[in-house]
Structure formats: structure tokens, C-alpha cells
């Protein structure tokens, strides 16, 4: 019985930080459907920085909830999507965008695959050309013709 109590207490202690976190700044219940729709659209384009392979919309992390709330508040204050994205990239950098903007820093990211594709095509073209050049047609000699006819007959 005592063991059970200790375990329960331990569990409560473990859950306490989660509770504390949740109360510091809570994500409000959705009220305005128009804003929720905009938020849903925008947050699918944004990366959660805590669990980096999730969007802001999908992430259950506390930071993501904070950011969604921030976006919601800014939308209510009449900010445009563009202004909100600028607010976030000013603070967290381009990494927050799932589709990074085309800029000198991201040229390699955007155009690298196409450069690789073109390089591959060029190499393939050179290879085929080289092969074709190395195969020259030579007419059969009399001896070869005789052997071929023999094979066809048998």
C-alpha cells in the first residue's frame, strides 16, 4: 500500500511541470471561425522549432501553442499574414518557413537539384555518344558469312 502511494506521488510529481507549463500562457479556445481558418492555413506553412519536423499546426509542444496564440492575437489586432510571417522570421529566422524564400542563401537549396539533373543528363549524353562512336559497323568477312549460314541451316 505504501509502495503504491509512493508511486502515485511520484507520478503526480512527474506531471506537475506539465501542469505548471500549461498554465503560464494558455492557448485560448477557438472563437472566431474566420481567424481559426487563417491560423490553420498559416500554421501549416510554419515549422515548430522545438520538434523540427512538425508544422506549427500539428505540434503539441508548448512553444508551438504559444506561437499559435501569438498569431491569433496578431490576427485579431488586424495584422496581415505577411506581417505575421515577418514578425516570426525576424525572431526565429527563415528556418521557420517550410518553403524558404528564394534568396542567395537558399539558391543551392532551390536550384541545386536542377543543376544535378542537368549534370546527370549531360553525363548520360556523353556516355551514349561515346558508346555509339566506339561501335563501328564492319561488314562480315567471307569466312564469317559461311559460318553464319551454316548455323542458320542446322
Amino acid at each position, binding site marked *: 500500500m505504501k509502495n503504491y502511494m509512493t508511486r502515485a506521488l511520484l507520478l503526480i510529481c512527474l506531471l506537475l*511541470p506539465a501542469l*505548471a*507549463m500549461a498554465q*503560464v*500562457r494558455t492557448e485560448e479556445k477557438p472563437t472566431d471561425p474566420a481567424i481559426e481558418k487563417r491560423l490553420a492555413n498559416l500554421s501549416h506553412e510554419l515549422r515548430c*522549432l*522545438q520538434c*523540427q519536423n512538425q508544422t506549427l499546426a500539428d505540434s503539441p509542444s*508548448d*512553444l508551438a501553442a*504559444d*506561437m499559435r496564440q*501569438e498569431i491569433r492575437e496578431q490576427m485579431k489586432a488586424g495584422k496581415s499574414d505577411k506581417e505575421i510571417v515577418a514578425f516570426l*522570421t*525576424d*525572431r*526565429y*529566422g*527563415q*528556418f521557420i518557413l517550410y518553403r524558404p524564400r528564394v534568396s542567395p542563401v537558399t539558391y543551392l537549396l532551390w536550384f541545386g537539384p536542377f543543376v544535378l539533373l542537368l549534370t546527370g543528363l549531360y553525363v548520360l549524353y556523353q556516355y551514349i555518344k561515346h558508346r555509339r562512336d566506339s561501335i563501328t559497323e564492319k561488314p562480315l568477312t567471307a569466312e564469317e558469312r559461311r559460318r553464319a549460314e551454316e548455323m542458320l541451316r542446322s
Partner: protein
Amino acid sequence: MFRYLIPLALFLVLVVFLAIGLTRNPQELPSALINKPAPDFRLPQLKDPAKTFSAADMRGKVWMLNVWASWCIACRDEHPFLFRYAQSGAVPIYGLNYKDYRENALGWLGELGDPYLLSVTDLDGRVGMDYGVYGAPETYIIDKRGTIRLKHVGPVTPDVWSKEVLPVVQELNRQ
């Protein structure tokens, strides 16, 4: 003969790239705020909420802002080292108590000691958001003109301190 070495050479290049990739920390992001003005704030002090502290109070000084919270496990690892850095007198260290309850934060400092000149309370995490905080502990070095010159995400280990933080602090103090 040479043509058979080409795939091997390509493979070695790939290995080098992958090896470099493995040594990098994907959690570490380039900060958007380096060489930008440190966002100003005026927040109540943790130990004496009647008093406030503002980033603007630190104009003319090179200082360090360390983001911490009692719920942050990595902060616990970093904490003992902060005393060492504070004692060295290299840079004044201020704390931003991020999304934490006052009683928890005070309990933490009571238990482990307080290396900060003072800490301020950022209960709702708005100042943290202005600083682009995404994983406590985070450390910022801010220069005399109030510009962020260095950001480190994760604990400032003695290695990080001597290789990254200290050189920047010394350079900024010379200016």
C-alpha cells in the same frame, strides 16, 4: 584503371559530407538576431517584483543574458558552471526566468544557489519570443550599444565558454 577509381572517389566525397553532417547539431539554428538590436524589455525582478529591470539599463556595458527556468532540465546541468563564469568577473550575468512560476523559480535558486546579478520574470514568454527563444537554456551576449553579438542555444559548457563566449566578450570589451 583510372575509371574504376571514380566511384570510389565519389563514395569518399559522400562519406566526408556525411561525416561532417554527423558532427553538427540539428537543434542549433542560425539566429536571426545576431548583430541586430537586442529587443528592449522592462520586466519585474524575480526577487523583488516591485523593482524592474530593462535591457536599456545595460547600455554602455557588455553583458550576458541567460534564459532559464526551473522546469528546464538542461538548465540544471548548466547551473553550476554559471557560478564559475560569474566569479571570473568576465561579464555580468543576468537571468531571464522564462515561463516559470515565481515560487518554483525562487525554490530553484534557493536550492542550487543564485549565480545571477538579478533575474527578471518573463511569465508569459513574450520577451522570450522577442528574443527568438526556442529551447532553454539560451545565452545572449549583448554589446555596449545594445546589439546582440552572440547567441548560444543549450548549456554553456566550459568548452563553449572558453571557445565561443569568452573570446567574444573580451573582443567586445576592448572596443
